[in-house]
């Protein structure tokens, strides 16, 4: 998987890529380094699980089309995240129209004993998704980028295209929603 050199693919910290000419990575390099991030990001941005693989492909096709135009003004990761946002938004809209229906409770299903870990992971994903689904797209993006992906707020504001203060406000509001949702879930768990 890794027969290509990895010279400049890693995301430089903000500002570290300003003066030098941008040595653009190949699509293969971008894929090797960021595919897992793209996948995870799409998931947390609400792309339905069955659609993630297609969406991941959409992201890399878009990267392929635009890579020549990448100017290094933001980190590569930030730039890719912007593409993920657009792809996820589009995919969510289509999924919603097509088939998605939220349910009030986590579906239960029989699992093999050997799949317990996977099952638990799936339950955790479902729970997190349910919490994130409360948020509108703007708040969700800021929350995911900050709380899960660990980007600094300044970069997040660039990615989502809003002033820094607006990004802070969105994060604040998103946290309130998520914390309240988590408390509700906790209360339900204790009450049952």
């Amino acid at each position, binding site marked *: 998987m890794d027969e290509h050199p990895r010279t400049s693919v890693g995301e430089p910290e903000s500002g570290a890529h300003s003066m030098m000419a941008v040595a653009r990575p*190949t*699509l*293969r390099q971008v894929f090797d380094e960021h595919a897992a991030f793209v*996948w995870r990001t799409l998931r947390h941005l609400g792309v339905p699980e069955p659609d993630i693989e297609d969406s991941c492909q959409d992201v890399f*096709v878009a990267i392929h*089309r635009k890579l020549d135009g990448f100017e290094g003004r933001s980190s590569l990761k930030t730039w890719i995240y912007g593409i993920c946002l657009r792809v996820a938004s589009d995919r969510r809209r289509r999924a919603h129209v097509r088939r998605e*229906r939220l349910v009030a409770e986590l579906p239960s299903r029989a699992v093999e004993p050997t799949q317990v870990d996977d*099952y638990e992971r799936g339950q955790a994903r479902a729970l997190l998704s349910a919490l994130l689904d409360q948020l509108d797209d703007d708040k969700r993006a800021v929350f995911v980028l900050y709380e899960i992906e660990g980007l600094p707020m300044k970069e997040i504001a660039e990615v989502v295209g809003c002033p820094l203060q607006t990004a802070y406000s969105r994060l604040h509001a998103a946290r309130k929603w998520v*914390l309240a949702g988590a408390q509700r879930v906790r209360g339900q768990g204790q009450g049952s």
Partner: protein
Amino acid sequence: MSGDPTRLTDGSEAPEELRNLLSAAREDVPTESQLKRVATRLGPLLGGAAIGTAAGAGAASTSGATAGATGGMALGVKVGAALVAAGLVGGGAIWVATRGNAPPPAPLRSAPVAAPAPATPPAAHRLVVPPAASAAVEQQAKPAPQPSKPARPATAGDSAKKVAPPEASLLHSAQSALKTDPHRALALVEEHRRLYPHGALSQEREVIAIEALTRLGRTSEAQKKASDFKQRYPDSAHESKVGATVEGN
């Protein structure tokens, strides 16, 4: 990082369950086979390997029957689409490597169509009903040429009948004809426009049309199209190509 607030995972504001959820989410990466399948779909774009010989060639066999069924067919379309774009931007050589739509990767083709489990862990990750398998079936069962995504019409049972995606293959033919028979290229482009007015490759269609018109000496039409293109797709990656085509004439 300056004035950024403490993250929920690092502070005490959030209950422990939520902190655990967020921490787990950071570690929640796709499986190797999932990534390999995507790599396989992207095959030629990732460095010229033919479809089926890329990293994912052997990956789909372990899990992913759903992905095998959908992916195998979506593959042709999407890679085809990407390749048209690649051919236009990068000079067209990629098409040679990708005629390859035709023989999709063996593991995808041989994956058991009815196998239920997607590659991802079993739970219903997004509280989506119906589950993944039926959603995939639903998607596969979409009737053929829909304008926006004509490339995904195939069902798992179609694998033997037609693998070349109509939208991509039309433009592939048009692109191939550009140098030797621009009249034909233009006709194919118009056929594409008729069948897929809002196709995924609309930009690429216009780029071919502009070049065909230029080659035919119909420069004012080419310039008009180029101008329309810039208006319609102001951020297109093909803009410089379009500019060079009409200005170079």
